């Protein structure tokens, strides 16, 4: 295998692993917080429904977290197996957050083990809830630390290269690079948002399938409220991300927005297609790109004309940007209308078609997460470490990457199908109605 092939297959395998892992990782970061909120509401209101909600979410979470853990282990090691040159360099500067991530993960794993086996151990439910705090913290901090590594790849700081040697390394400066604040906030908040909408989709689906329990209605209302809060926060963070990109990675912003020529008062290009370098059928919002980049309608935004051809990311990232932003806006609106509709007693938010829209919101949110990560990774090309190391120079020289790609693809198929089948069976066998009835009779004392 030539080295170009090794680079190509390494990229495909990394993309496949990350695309699969990110589904479970995103859910894994967000759901502990949702469980915590539900259990807390349940304890506060002394409402059995919310407690059961937390308990059933936990059961599902254990399955998704298992797939998240094993695929996370895979990507952790694949970084060294597929990108040895990158890790050799990056290990010198950005190993600290990677190392800290394993501690966060360790912390989460220990308390998750304790939490799931102690549902019935404590008289005082609050004590049990306390055990969940390290799980949620560990999960969120895992995301924080890993995203710091990714931020470093976009804006490498904290070292100098003199005669090909790394000097003056500062691990702390490397961690607190310019990309870090917006990226970390964006990843963590969208994980909460996606988890809320995925759980909302499940609740809506059960209601559509004829389960008329107040349990699902409470679940749906709670998750839509949370989803709205986090999606509104995401929109705000999106604005900050735009300003970060304009300042530090103008080529990524310009490629994502199809902004070819440097100029003042730049319009924001939404949708459209690229035909021989011409933008067609696009929606152009005057001055919006200048506002997004610099807050001022007349501000100058750097275009792709300022960069050498071989340092411009692929232009198809515009479609990824559109997908991400459109879904984000759509979900913000949908959840807002739903909440308002419940408060104002609008009948249509309880209709079947609206229910299906909420169901669709689950997979759409996951798609937005995928589009966002593809945008981030492809938008950084041709660099693996922006301005320092090109992707083609970072890959392994090993000749068996294509075979490994086939093996891992098989693995992800097995894990994906397995997790879906198991989750499906788990909740169908043990329905909410059945469990509520069991718990009621248990409380009444006739256990047997």
């Amino acid at each position, binding site marked *: 295998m030539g080295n170009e092939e090794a680079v190509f297959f390494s990229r495909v395998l990394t993309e496949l692993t990350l695309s699969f892992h990110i589904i479970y990782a995103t859910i894994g970061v967000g759901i502990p917080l949702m469980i915590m909120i539900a259990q807390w509401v349940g304890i506060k209101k002394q409402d059995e429904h919310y407690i059961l909600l937390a308990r059933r979410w936990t*059961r599902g979470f*254990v*399955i998704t*977290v*298992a797939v998240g*853990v*094993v695929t*996370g*282990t*895979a990507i*952790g*090691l*694949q970084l*060294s*197996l*597929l*990108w*040895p*040159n990158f*890790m*050799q360099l990056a*290990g*010198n*500067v950005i*190993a*600290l957050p*990677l*190392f*800290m*991530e*394993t*501690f966060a993960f*360790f*912390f989460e794993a*220990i308390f*998750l*083990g*304790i939490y*799931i*086996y*102690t*549902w*019935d151990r404590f008289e005082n439910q609050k004590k049990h809830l306390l055990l969940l705090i390290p799980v949620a913290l560990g999960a969120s901090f895992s995301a924080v630390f890993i995203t710091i590594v990714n931020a470093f790849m976009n804006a490498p700081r904290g070292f100098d290269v003199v005669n090909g040697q790394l000097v003056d*390394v*500062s*691990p702390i400066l490397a961690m607190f690079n310019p990309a870090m604040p917006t990226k970390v906030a964006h990843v963590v908040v969208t994980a909460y948002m996606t988890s809320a909408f995925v759980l909302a989709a499940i609740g809506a689906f059960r209601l559509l399938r004829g389960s008329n329990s107040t349990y699902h209605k409470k679940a749906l209302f709670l998750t839509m409220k949370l989803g709205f809060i986090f999606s509104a926060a995401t929109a705000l963070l999106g604005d900050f991300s735009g300003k970060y990109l304009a300042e530090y990675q103008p080529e990524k912003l310009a490629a994502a927005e199809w902004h070819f020529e440097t100029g003042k008062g730049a319009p924001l290009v939404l949708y459209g297609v690229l035909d021989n370098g011409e933008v067609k059928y696009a929606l152009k919002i005057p001055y919006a790109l200048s506002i997004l980049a610099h807050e001022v309608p007349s501000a100058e935004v750097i275009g792709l004309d300022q960069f050498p051809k071989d340092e411009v990311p692929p232009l198809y990232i515009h479609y990824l940007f559109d997908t991400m932003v459109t879904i984000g806006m759509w979900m913000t609106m949908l959840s807002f209308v739903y909440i308002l509709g419940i408060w104002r007693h609008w009948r249509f938010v309880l209709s079947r078609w609206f229910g299906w829209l909420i169901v669709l919101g689950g997979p759409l949110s996951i798609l937005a997460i995928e589009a966002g990560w593809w945008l981030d990774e492809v938008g950084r090309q041709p660099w693996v470490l922006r301005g320092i190391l090109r992707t083609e120079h970072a890959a*392994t*020289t*090993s000749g*068996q990457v294509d075979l*490994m790609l086939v093996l*891992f693809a098989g*693995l992800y198929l097995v894990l994906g199908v*397995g*997790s879906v*089948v*198991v989750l499906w*069976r*788990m909740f169908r*066998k043990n329905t909410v109605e059945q469990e509520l009835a069991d718990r009621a009779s248990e409380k009444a004392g006739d256990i047997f």
Partner: protein
Amino acid sequence: MTLEIIGISALGLFLFGYIIIASIDFGAGFFNAFSTVTGKQHILTKIIQRYLSPVWEVTNVFLVFFFVGMVGFFPKTAYYFGTTLLVPASIALILLAIRGAYYAFTTYGGLKHKRYTILYGLTGLFIPASLSSVLSISEGGFVKIENSAPVLDYWALFTSPLSWSIVVLSLTAVLYISAVFLTWYAHHAKDEEATNLLRKYALSWAGPAIITAAGIIFEMRTHNPEHYQRLLDLWWLFGLSVVFFAGTVFFIWKRRSYGLAFWLLVGQFALAFLAYGASHYPYLLYPYLTLYDSFTNQSMAIALIVAFIAGLGLLLPSLYLLLKLFLFNKEYVQGNRNDEHA
């Protein structure tokens, strides 16, 4: 003590932790599968399930910690081992992934089938076998430099008596460590039948474990004379290790002090591990890579060590809590407490 030594000691500690904990886990899975095939499932499954359930995820983290820390402290290993280990490490990863995920699927998802139990048991043998190839490779002789890039010579690896001895040792050690621990655990749970069966396993794997371990020292003589000489220089550590081994076998044989027997076993492996590691010094990969030329810069090393100490401050109390609630909780171990998962 230099930063390099602190770094490798921290990693060694976690690697050793992984070897013990993962061996218990792999062996438990195998014994469970074996008892299913031989119709003795009713004796073992309960006790093994009760041990494994709350700790399965923790085992994996030890491994992740090791390889992330390795790249952190010794970034050049990413280049040398990353390039050469693509195939064996990928195979181990895939097996680990299937094993971990299907453990959760069967335990929490109600996916119960004899097929999965057997698959689970077999991965417990293949994973240590493929992971142990890292040890063989680090002995040198299997990696060549072509066009200034390291390349693994598969043919040499697969035909080497040393690499096969290491594979066999990894298997016997897994089964021996696991059997001794589970004997103690079953006894702790007052499960007479399981204790007797596991005790029998422990005694039958003791011999093969010590013989294969000795075999490796023998193989080393021709494969890597330099390392062999350094091993011999540390004969007293190995001698002490053998004394500990004899202690374990004695107590298991006499059916008493199973707890002490297990801790002697930990001591036995710790001494052997230490002696092996110390004699490997200063090489990480014979003859290309030493601790010193692969070490990271000073500021990163200090940052990692600070993070390591802070992290341990967080982890040790948490691990203690986990052990207290499950492993050393009489009510839980004996199954009197009805701790169903979520």
